């Protein structure tokens, strides 16, 4: 506030208030989920809730830092930030620490840092800088490939560290590209491939390919007015079939068993009762417990620190990826809906402001922020409620964890800073 008066710029308070509500309510739920026994102190720094409080303090410092820097340096240093970020990801292969299968952490002293959380910020900056470059035309194949490359490098590195969940988030850049003018056909293709992929897994590649081929030929011979070469539909059908078999190959051969299981559970592919029984004890266990915790909350919830499933620690990882189940149990339908609405409002607000930007850099950046937040929100809450397969990524501002909180804070507040600059220019 001092900052705004002294420096003479205005920030978007709506976004900041939404941010504060999410972080504050998030901490309340982390407190409940990680509390064991009686409440003794809110500042027990050996417990997750105490640590999270420190993380929150630190993120406030980050916000001050972001605000105190010139807005234009983000664009100017985007490439360097991106490079440093890539290096930090590569460094993991040498110095990384492995936690639950993923080599995604640096352990420095007592604290661990997850560079992939910061890589998102760097990648959004880099993409924004590249697309907003005067020489870039996103409508050309060459520049499209280059932007995809910018995204692919960190995505691939993260995938290699065995953190598939964080990799998927990079798919959210599709929304950015689409907004910036890639042809509509990409949307169609993207959507088509999504359906084709799911169908190849659910109904297997061969029947899917046959049905798709038949549909394509029906379209060619009976619906299309202008008859062109027969080669076109044949080529399209072939590509579809290749994709279909490719997905099936990817699923059966490349995916690891635990990833296969998640997908097979989601698509209800698993028929073997014994296998199902064993899955119920492992992957489904978390999901079941989390769904039960949420549904047991009822309309108004059981109340703060009153969730019997939260107290009994029935949901594993509840203070991190499954934090939303605490909201569901203790705050009920009212509290959960409140959180969903906070996220929807925050994302829409960011989108709205992004559209107001005069500089393309700021707009692309804002779009990237909204897309990433949206993906996290959709995947995390969707997973906790059993709507999509289990993918372990945190709920922004809500889940326990320093790197995650700082990454998202930087992501959002750089945008707020960029936006405040727009108002200044006005």
């Amino acid at each position: 506030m001092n900052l705004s008066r002294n420096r003479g710029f205005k920030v978007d308070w709506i976004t900041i208030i939404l941010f504060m509500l999410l972080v504050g309510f998030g901490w309340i739920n982390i407190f409940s989920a990680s509390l064991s026994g009686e409440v003794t102190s809110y500042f027990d720094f050996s417990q997750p809730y105490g640590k999270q409080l420190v993380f929150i303090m630190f993120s406030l410092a980050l916000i001050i830092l972001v605000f105190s820097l010139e807005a234009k340096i983000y664009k100017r240093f985007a490439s360097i930030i991106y490079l440093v970020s890539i290096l930090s990801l590569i460094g993991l292969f040498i110095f990384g620490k492995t936690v639950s299968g993923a080599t995604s952490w640096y352990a420095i002293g007592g604290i661990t840092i997850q560079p992939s959380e910061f890589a998102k910020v760097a990648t959004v900056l880099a993409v924004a800088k590249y697309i907003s470059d005067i020489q870039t035309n996103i409508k050309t194949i060459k520049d499209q490939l280059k932007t995809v490359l910018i995204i692919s490098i960190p995505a691939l590195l993260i995938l290699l560290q065995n953190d598939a969940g964080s990799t998927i988030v990079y798919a959210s850049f599709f929304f950015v590209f689409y907004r910036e003018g890639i042809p509509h056909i990409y949307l169609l293709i993207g959507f088509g491939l999504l359906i084709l992929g799911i169908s190849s897994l659910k109904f297997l590649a061969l029947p899917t390919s046959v049905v798709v081929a038949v549909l394509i030929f029906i379209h060619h011979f009976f619906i299309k007015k202008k008859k062109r070469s027969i080669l076109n539909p044949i080529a399209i059908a072939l590509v579809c079939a290749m994709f279909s078999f490719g997905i099936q190959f990817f699923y059966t051969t490349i995916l690891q068993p635990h990833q296969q299981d998640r997908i097979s559970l989601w698509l209800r592919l698993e028929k073997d009762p014994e296998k199902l029984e064993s899955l119920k004890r492992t992957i489904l266990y978390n999901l079941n417990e989390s769904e039960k915790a949420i549904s047991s909350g009822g309309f108004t919830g059981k109340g703060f620190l009153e969730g019997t499933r939260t107290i009994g620690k029935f949901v594993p990882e509840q203070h991190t990826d499954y934090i939303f189940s605490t909201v569901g149990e203790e705050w009920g339908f009212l509290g959960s809906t409140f959180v969903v609405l906070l996220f929807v409002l925050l994302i829409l607000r960011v989108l709205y402001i992004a559209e107001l930007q005069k500089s393309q850099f700021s707009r692309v950046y804002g779009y990237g922020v909204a897309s990433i937040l949206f993906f996290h929100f959709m995947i995390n809450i969707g997973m906790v409620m059993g709507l999509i397969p289990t993918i372990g990524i945190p709920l922004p501002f809500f889940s326990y964890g320093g790197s995650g909180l700082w990454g998202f804070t930087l992501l959002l507040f750089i945008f707020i800073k960029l936006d405040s600059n727009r108002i200044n220019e006005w």
Partner: protein
Amino acid sequence: MRKLLLFSIVILVGILFITRLFYLQVSSNKAYTIYEDNAIRKVFHYPKRGYVYDRNGELLVANQPSYDVMIIPREVKYIDTLEFCSLLKITKEDYIKTYNKSYRYSPRLPSVFLAHLSKEDYAFLSEKMRKYKGFYIQKRSLRDYQTSIGANVLGFIAEANQRDIKKDPYYKMGDLIGKQGVEISYEKVLRGIKGVKFIQKDRFNRDISSYKNGDFDIIPIPGKDITITIDAKLQAYGELLMQNKMGGIVAIEPSTGEILSLVSAPSYNPNLLVGRKRSANYTKLHNDSIHLPLIDKGLLRMHEPGSPFKSLIALAALQEGVIDLTTTITCTGEYHYGGKRTIRCHCGTGRRNLNSGISQSCNSYFATTYRKTIDKYDDASHAMDAWSNHIKSFGLGDYLNNDLSVGKKGNIPNGAYYDKWYPDFKWGSTTTISNAIGQGEILVTPIQLANVMAAIANRGFYYTPHIIKDIEGVSIPEKYKTLHQTTIDKRHFEPVIQGLYDVYNEGTAWFLKVPGIEICGKTGTAENFIKIDGKRTQLTDHSIFVAFAPKENPKIAIAVLVENGYFGARWAGRIASLMIEKYIKGDVTLKQMEQLVLNKSLEEEYLKPYSGKPFKINQ
């Protein structure tokens, strides 16, 4: 358009999530109660079930500890089933069957897996139980009968079934509930309130702490002891006399309506329905379709009352003023009515008045008396209503509404009843003449007959026959202290009582006298029929006897039904006399009569209809 894509997707996902939340938390939320929350362990403490004492303070029913293996199906995880089965001495098939049954009841609520462990098994198992997730041992209290008599009165308890649980959510699978006799009538008094402790668990099934500091815990409240009106010695004697016979004895204290004994024969030893053998024994008792040991015959056997009903015919006629003590008729051994029809009479012919009509049980006298009562009115329907009203004021034709869990209404017809049968309204006193001698449409139960005798003994009033004498610290319901007045004036009772006295003195029960006790009684013989292969077949008559004693200040009123025992004085009368002597003197002097009754078996009679061969009756 490009701007709107993400915008609309975000909104769509938001709506989708809220819909899903609504589905999970509001529409499919089955009102999770604390009992169904599997994060909370429920530890039940079953309080002592109330004891049952007889009217003289003799302990009849106490408790014994029992240990059940309980299961919470959904918590059963990773156990070595074979090892577990061998520990419990059951087969794997049993295991699967019981598991599935419990699962169907509820995956998250406990049910009984194996009931009534022996003490040795309990000691052995209790240490190993911890290994088997989802199983635990629950201590419970079972009944311990201190006596082998009165099974029909004392009743039994058993595990609450689905219907009980649905009716009253207090009961959970495996809880015990009264199923018969006083156990059902005084269930809530006897059971007390079970205690519950709620304990927060973690996902490894370990106890963390008391749930909300025990705010929701329920402290067990022990059941109250009750004293019942039954005289255990009289009851035991009644059951002894009824051995090898079928039927019922109901004895009532006229001045209070307390039921002194309620014998149903044959009965069973109440200890048969306790413990592990319970269900096998129950099935055996339940399937005995000849003797029906689970049916309380004193309460449920409806029959024609026969001659004992004549006292009521006389009282109604006196009240209506159609006869007086001087009214006489001459009996020729046959009573003719409605043209060619006749009622035969076994009174031995001669002049009959009220007194000798009763003491000799003259059919002609009562047919005449009944006709006078009905013909007093111009309208038969109206007359029948008036008559029916007198009879019903003795508690006939309706439930007694007392604290016995079962009962029958019986039947006392009124005007409307016959109007329905004869839609042309061409009916009258002759059409319904069977009523005069306690046959035809009249149906009563032994307890109703005993109550009629109590009302006559009291000269015009009765208290509802009941079984409860005292509830620890609580007074018995007011309705058992409420006097029910009959419609007959007190003065009409003395001549009828004198007639009943003369039944013993010089009439049909002259050989049943008990030295030193003035008994008033009445014999009865009721025809009865069953269907064999769809054909209505007559069986040997039921032997019926009603009595009260002493004549002045009566202490006991009694009704005895011996099924297929032939004429009233033969078995029912003897049993009534012996019961009266036993109750009033405490001891029996009529040893010869006692021996005669004890040695008599009617088993042959009961098997006749099932033999498949032709048979003779009334031998």
